[in-house]
């Protein structure tokens, strides 16, 4: 049972609580067991109903659900022998991003994931998943290591944006992101990018250049957060739900546009209700995608990426 409920999940809470109460009876009668089964059935139906028609704003809220699996939850299950690699070798180690190497199934891989915190203290440490320049430079260092030793690269995106602070600007936030875009385009290894929560703007793209772009079902990816968009265009951050509609930021919209290559299904009721299934679904998808990407001649990756991103622009050309 999740610890936190979004407003549209409230009706589910009642059933969750009823089931918990019934299950806590020490010597349940036949009647009680029957009621448990009945309530579980009801809950299943209700979850399906609530989750079958989520609007974009609800999906944005789900992507931010505080009980969702974060990068380290994924890494723990995907890569049991994970070894974290710290620091950019120039300035410091940025805890808003975790990077390292290990085995995914039979394969050696490198993985880089943006990391949020579970509570206030951890969030201050992780800076709410908002990377600073040293984070992008650490990521690049690990990417270059992966390329040198022929490890494919997985990146997990989950950030409200790159950190907008004085120090971040002083140390070249824009340069760090730009550098990664250029260097990642030319990496001679397969890259799979996955949005596991929030994929906000240049902050996500700074580790997000890839050959296959995957999105978990309840996530978003956009040039700006719905709040940011609303406060600029409507002069009212409270209009974020409307901005979320306009921005076309949910996986199904992005698949239609051609940005998202594959949507990873989440278990009934979202990844926060059943982390293991969500992570297993992703594991399977990554391994399938890697199997296909490994057939590509590494010398061709830059041209393939240029072709891919060239197609992601829509304009008219007057004759």
């Amino acid at each position: 049972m999740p610890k936190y409920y979004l407003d549209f999940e409230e009706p589910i809470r009642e059933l969750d609580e009823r089931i918990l109460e019934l299950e806590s009876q020490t010597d349940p009668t036949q009647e009680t067991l029957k009621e448990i089964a009945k309530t579980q059935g009801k809950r299943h139906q209700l979850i399906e109903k609530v989750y079958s028609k989520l609007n974009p704003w609800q999906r944005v809220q789900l992507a931010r659900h505080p009980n969702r699996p974060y990068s380290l939850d994924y890494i723990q299950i995907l890569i049991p022998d994970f070894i974290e690699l710290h620091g950019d070798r120039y300035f410091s180690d940025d805890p808003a991003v975790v990077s390292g190497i290990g085995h995914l199934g039979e394969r050696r891989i490198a993985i880089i994931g943006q990391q949020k915190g579970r509570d206030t203290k951890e969030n201050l440490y992780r800076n709410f998943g908002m990377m600073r320049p040293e984070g992008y430079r650490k990521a690049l260092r690990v990417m270059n290591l992966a390329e040198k030793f022929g490890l494919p690269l997985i990146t997990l995106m989950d950030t409200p944006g790159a950190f907008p602070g004085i120090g971040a600007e002083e140390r070249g936030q824009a340069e760090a992101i730009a550098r990664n875009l250029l260097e990642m385009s030319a990496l001679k290894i397969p890259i799979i990018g996955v949005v596991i929560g929030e994929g906000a703007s240049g902050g996500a793209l700074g580790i997000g250049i890839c050959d296959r772009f995957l999105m978990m079902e309840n996530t978003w990816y956009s040039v700006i957060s719905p709040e940011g968009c609303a406060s600029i265009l409507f002069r009212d951050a409270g209009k974020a739900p409307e901005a979320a509609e306009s921005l076309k930021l949910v996986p199904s919209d992005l698949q239609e546009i051609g940005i998202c290559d594959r949507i990873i299904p989440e278990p009934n009721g979202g990844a926060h209700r059943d982390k293991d299934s969500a992570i297993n679904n992703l594991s399977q998808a990554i391994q399938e995608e890697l199997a296909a990407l490994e057939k590509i001649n590494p010398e061709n990756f830059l041209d393939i990426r240029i072709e891919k991103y060239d197609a992601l622009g829509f304009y008219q050309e007057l004759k």
Partner: protein
Amino acid sequence: MAWYNRKDKKFKDSEKKSIPDGLWEKCISCDEVLFRPELDKNLCVCHHCQHHFRVSSAVYLDLLLDKGSETQLFSTLESKDFLGFKAGKKYSTQITGAKRKTGDHDAIKVYSGKLNEKPIILGVMNFAFIGGSMGSVVGEAVSRAIKTAGKKKIPLVLICSSGGARMQEGAVSLMQLAKTSAHLAKFSQEGGLYISVLTDPTTGGVTASYGMLGDIILAEPGALIGFAGPRVIKQTIGQDLPKGFQRAEFLLEKGFIDHIVPRSEMKDKLSRLIGLLT
């Protein structure tokens, strides 16, 4: 000192009402009232405080390319409201309005031409066109400019000024950062010379892609250059920003640009750099 430059504030305020629109401009930096034809002759740089006004692409075209050497490229590219984006104003209405206001087709113009007889590809962004924002057209025009420079084996110069990615195109505008950077990766591998010139203001997605990827990065004096806008940073950290923060001089001190070059010296500096590197 000419009479129109008098520092008497009262005189200036009353005078302002009686001067015809368009003939006078108040310097936003030093408050002096400037005679427009004089200002234009001075490349739109205030002769009191050297403030560099934001200018249209025509000014850089005149300034940088040898007279009559230029050919405009890719001017048939037009933005399209493919998301049917509505937020207050419709995107399609904004495009039409910006075209009417600027006379330009989008936020960038690309030319092939000669700079002191050396052939180059020149791209000039225009902040007046929807904040110089980068959507599909800017992304495509910059990419084609890079490819053309690569094919012809000539230097590429981009004059940047932009508030960032064009959010009316959603995540597709974000993809333009990826697209232009990937083309630059190829161009650089093939030995191409790319010089970026950052003018006021260059923030967001343009800084975080081709703005910061020049082999040489130049900036105009006083230009605002950064990733996040100052308003956003102030909101996030809840304190005032240090004086001169995110200005060209600040970036030079922090090690992110090669040179601050006044507009009047830009052609000469570019010419010498190109001469030394090609």
